[in-house]
């Protein structure tokens, strides 16, 4: 058996007295698209953020390429080949679009330069038009594109996305998921966390269901899409 790219092994995490993750285990293999679905407050964002040490996990281990990274300083993690597109996008509002993208190249010591910028502009031509505009003046969808583009600037092996569809119009969501498919096809492993289970399960090879900080179910994307419990809990109206 090959070692997974990311192996999360029995991790727990707390926010003050509140336990957000209860011995969660999951793994992501190279080349996969993995979705983690769950309701608001299930611990999805905590799971992704804890990979970067916010918060630090209080038990278990996070192995990336077979190295335990659970104690690694936050700023060293991106350089190992992980990139996070966080919840709420978190673009730098007072910086231009181009500067935001350049920030994404920090893990590779700003070496990436024009070739990577061009690659991102190809994924999202709109960003090229807006490159001199302040990120804070972009619409939600444009900011999401910028956040994904920023993540791609470091040429990550594993791209982690936290609710890329949150608060966006259906047409934009469709476009973003199409782009994620293109990114995956170019050889990047993707892990995305979503409340929008419908889109996420259609895109994903495999998926996990997170409930109250605990993995309750796992299976292929299509299996979970067909599961009546999942349909009732996460796909109501879909």
């Amino acid at each position, binding site marked *: 058996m090959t070692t997974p790219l990311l192996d999360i092994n029995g991790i727990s995490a707390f926010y003050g007295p509140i336990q957000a993750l209860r011995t969660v285990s999951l793994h992501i293999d190279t080349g996969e698209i993995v979705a983690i679905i769950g309701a608001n407050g299930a611990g999805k964002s905590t799971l992704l953020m804890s990979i*970067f040490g*916010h918060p630090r996990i209080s038990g278990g281990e996070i192995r990336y390429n077979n190295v335990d990274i659970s104690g690694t*300083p*936050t*700023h*060293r*993690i*991106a*350089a190992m080949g992980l990139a*996070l597109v*966080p919840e709420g996008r*978190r673009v*730098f*509002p*007072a*910086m231009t679009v181009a*500067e935001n993208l*350049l*920030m*994404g190249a*920090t*893990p590779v010591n*700003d070496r990436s330069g024009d070739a990577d910028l061009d690659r991102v502009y190809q994924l999202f031509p709109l960003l090229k038009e807006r490159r001199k505009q302040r990120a804070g003046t972009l619409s939600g969808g444009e900011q999401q594109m910028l956040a994904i583009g*920023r993540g791609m600037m*470091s040429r990550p092996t594993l791209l982690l996305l936290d609710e890329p569809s949150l608060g966006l119009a259906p047409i934009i969501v469709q476009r973003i998921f199409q782009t994620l498919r293109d990114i995956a096809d170019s050889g990047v492993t993707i892990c995305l966390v979503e409340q929008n289970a419908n889109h996420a399960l259609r895109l994903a090879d495999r998926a996990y269901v997170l409930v109250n900080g605990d993995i309750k179910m796992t299976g292929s994307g299509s299996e979970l899409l067909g599961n009546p419990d999942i349909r009732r809990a996460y796909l109501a109206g879909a």
Partner: protein
Amino acid sequence: MDWYILIQQLINGLTLGSVYGLIAVGYTMVYGIIGMINFAHGDVYMVSAYLTAISIAVFTFFGISSIPFLLLCTVIITIAITSVYGWAIERVAYRPLRDSTRLAPLISAIGMSLVLQNYVQLAQGARNQGVPTLIDQVFRIGDGDAFVQITYLQIIIISVSVVSMILLTFLIHKSDLGRRCRATQQDRIMAGILGVNTDRIISITFVIGSAMAAIAGVLVTLYYGSFDFYVGFITGIKAFTAAVLGGIGSLPGAMLGGIILGLSESLFSSFVNTDYKDVFAFSLLVLILIFKPEGILGTPETEKV
């Protein structure tokens, strides 16, 4: 009111204002990045005044007689040592409290300020110290009773301040380091996730602020010639006022606030009352905090999401 007195006061005010601006940079950058007022910053400036005097004495002792060379050595040494002070203060007094309540580092800063004052008082004595006048040339425009005079030192102070501010603005807006500073300021956690060593950026911010205060320290010490262990307090609060006036967190705001404060203080003391010039400056602070707390170039707190 005579025109030449007005012009003279504008020149004096501009000189004073440039210095306030240089020191205000330290307050505004630290506030921008970690959201705390570094109340020890004025005392870092005070330390640089002592370092100026010591450097001049030491370099003169070793036989450096060329005044430009002497001043260059003094500036370099003062900036270097003052920066180490700034770095060490952050490391010792603020970093361990980074994740505690907002009030804790503020109290620690006041403590640090007292530590520095008392340490300098013990090490250097409580008496006024002074440096010799090294540059006494003067430009004089006009004749008879109606003249304006600009000292060479005033020209040096204004031009050094302007050049320093331009270099700093360039550093912050055009370099990779500056971009990382701004990213850390806007979203520290996200900057860290993107690979920025935010602890190092915070240290660099303290070093930059201290270096600017050191430049101000050298200039003011040469200008006034005398100082004591307590000068950091009043000058620090004035520079803080300048930072608030311009909009705390804003770099051009610090310079603008400094110049406005310097000019208005100078005009007030010349045309109204010299004894009340500090009262005037602090009344200004109170008025800004009441009517325009975000300052001239600052953004209102509510915009932060």
